[in-house]
């Protein structure tokens, strides 16, 4: 904690959600929790927006939903990456990394000057 909360950059949410599913199907709650914990609670995402992202990507066919049973034996909707979702993830990751590298380069250059 202690750190300032970061607002999410436009278009990043889908990427994060896709990434969260790379280790296998998860339900929405797990995705939210994973993003919160993995980013050390630095990223604040409204969970409503997260679900919106999930459903939107399901409509696009990037992820596929299926009802399953959670660890504590409750019915939950699990999302998994589809083939096109995987492709999308790879592409977004590449773009995002190149983008971030470029930004870092510029920031680094400024520090050297």
């Amino acid at each position: 904690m202690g750190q300032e909360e970061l607002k999410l950059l436009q278009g990043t949410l889908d990427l994060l959600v896709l990434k969260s599913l790379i280790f296998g199907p998860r339900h929405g709650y797990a995705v939210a929790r994973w993003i919160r914990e993995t980013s050390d609670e630095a990223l604040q995402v409204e969970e409503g927006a997260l679900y919106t992202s999930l459903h939107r990507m399901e409509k696009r066919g990037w992820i596929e939903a299926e009802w399953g049973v959670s660890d504590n034996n409750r019915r939950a909707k699990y999302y998994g990456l589809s083939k096109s979702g995987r492709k999308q993830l790879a592409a977004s990751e590449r773009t995002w990394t190149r983008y971030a590298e470029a930004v870092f380069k510029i920031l680094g250059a400024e520090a050297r000057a």
Partner: protein
Amino acid sequence: MSTIDGLRRVFRIASVRRDVKTDLEEELDFHFQMTLEELVAGGMSQSAARAEANRRFGDLKKYKKDLERTDRRRVTQARWAEALRIVRQDVGYALRGMRHSPGFTAAVVATLALGIGANATMFGVVDRLLLQPPAHVKDPGQVRRFSSHGHWSSGRPFDFNYLAYGDFIDWQAAESFESVAAYNLRATTLGLGTEMRRVSAGFASGDFFSLLGVQPVLGRLSQRKDDLPGAPPVAVLSYGFWQREFGGDPSVLGRVVEGGRQGYTVIGVAPQGFIGVELEAVDIWIPLNSFFVEFGSEERRERRWAYWLKIIARLRPGVDPSRAETEATLLHRTGRREMIEQGFDADVAITLSPIQTERGPSASQESLVARWLAGVSLVVLLIACANVANLLLARATRRRKEIAIRLALGISRRRLIGELLTDSLVLAGFGGAVALLIAAWGGELVRTVLLPDVAWAGSPVDSRVLVFTAALTLITGLAAGLVPAIQASRPSLSADLKEGMRGGRARRSGTRMALLIAQGALSVILLVGAGLVVRSLQRVESIDLGMVPESVLLARVELEPAERSDDEVIRIHERALERLKALPIVEEGSASGGIPFMSGAIAELFVPGLDSLPPSSRPGPWIDAVWPGYFATMGTPITHGRGFTDADDANATRVAVVNEAMARGLWRQEDPLGKCLQIESRDAPCTYVVGVVANRRIHDIMRPEWTYFVPLKQNFDLGIGALFVRGRGDSQQLAAAVRRELMVADPNIRYGVVQPLQEVIDPKFRHFRLGATMFTIFGLLALVVAALGLFAVLAFDISQRTHEIGVRSALGASRQGIVGMVMRQAVGLTAAGLVIGLVVAVLASRKLEPVLYEVSPRDPLVFGGVAVTLLLVAIAAGIIPAARAARVDPVKALRSE
């Protein structure tokens, strides 16, 4: 592979069908439960945890709405995609199937194409005649057409669609009508010298265009002021005439078209396609008043018995048509009170019928036949459907095992039926496409041959025919495919899986047999109809017309407009006829007031010793005034007494020649010569009968009517209708020579219309010829289709029963026995259809009576002929399958399984 696809699909559809809202609720519910548990486990109170969970989630209401919308879209999208995928897959499957069995495909497509094509063709015709309102008419439902109907004293009904000028005037005053208009279409001459030509003119009263709500494309249309006596003569050109004669030149306005007494000033052009409310083309529209001027017949305005105008009205909004009819009838009867008192038109009443001529009581024989043919084409389609259904059933039988496996693997029946229906729809689609070609060709044929006088617009395949064909194709595809699809999807699974290909003999489908029998029965009905119509045509063609029209020409002479005495008119014609008779190829010539099948007159007639004429004389007796040599020219035999000579002139004793029907009707066995007729009045001097002629058909080609002839010089009431010339050789060449001579015969002659008399008579037979031709074509089509169907089913059956037949012959069945078995089946099925068909035909053929002539609707010759034909066809269809069955080698057949 497709089965596994099917399985997967089944489940996906199931998940998609779940309610979106419940799913969403459950998902979010789970989320909140988990969050709460986590927070409470971390030490929060219930209420604090709830608040925190809500904070983390954000605006729940808004998100829920968004999510639900997204989900709904997703589900819809998925359903469409799925449906499309299934259709694409099924269509692909159907197309592959068609490629695999080109023979089967060709048979089905051809059968459907003929069935649908026949209907598309007839629809194009019926649509024009009965369905489409006339072009450019505003709110055509409110426009009605007058006709009068009642009974002659003979009890025979009459229907007039022409009415008197007085009726037109009277009805204008009626409360029921917003507006009333009258018109008369006839040929007239326009232009001068070499520019001269016959055009079709519409003489229409002042309100004609405003009543119909037509707008001009150029200038203005004629109005009431143009139709007043003394108004300058004007004309409105039809669009086609304007294009043809004036190249669409807008400066035509104000030009004078030579015609009538003073020429007509062009004031406007009617819109393209406007031909009034009839079906014939009109070149030029002229105010009705000009008709009286041009034809010098002012007295026509007064004559209640001159029926020469067609009259239409626009109903006042909200007026009940039956009330309007009552009012019109009352005015009509009041107007002819005197005639009714004299016993004419005693029960006359007015009918207001739809604006489409052919829908009303004045429908032509041609349209009556067209309606019949449309019905017949539907029967052809039914047969085609039955046939295709049968072929599909046979194919489904071949695929029984495959279908059983797929059902066992869990494909739903719905999907299977869908797949099989797609199959028949694709086949129907191809059939429909070919049908359009047939309709384009057939429509052209029917137009030129059946209804040459109708002004057809556009191609026989227009957008309405397209829509009709598409709809019919869809229905046909479903109708032909539904039964086979349902049947195929309901096999007894275990039986089909266990049996080999040879199985299923027991279920050799009652449906298929029923379809075969139905096909046979329907084609019997069509063939009986065709037979009756053809026999009628034979009868009609053998009618003794009482004249020999071959090589007789009819020459109608139009004089330069001028005031002339009767004597002058007679002299002009006499001179012209002399010149014609001087031509070496002309043998005889004469003239008359009336023209057979075109114009004639009925005058009141009194016979001393009789109170009134017998009812059988009505309509009639017809009077015709003729020149000497008339009977010889027309080829009408004089059976008793003499014809007219030059001596029978105005100063001589008044004489008459009667036809046999009239002579027998009036005087029975007595000698008619020297009997007295009193024409028009009881006080009139006697006109003495000097001769009897054969019954010449006057106006009704079906029956002889009472007719008597008087010398033209003793009775000029009718004027001179036409000159008649009997010549040698080709009638067209003769006509050309006569026309040339006539045009130079006299400066008073403005124009001569010369045509073979046969041309006037032929249209009277046209509907019989056409009915017979088309009925026969459709009947044969049905027979061929039914025969092919029988052949296909038998052949298929034999191929399915190879094993059984092998067993039979192995057990000692002779070849003859096997052939007999197949032939028995063929003839048995046909005989069943034949019996049903004949029974239905006996019950239904009565309806055909209006288009028959002197043939009983139960003509034994026709029924017997059809029965024999059908059995012969059955034998022919059975021969090849029977031969194939006989050739089955028992050893091979038994080893093959």
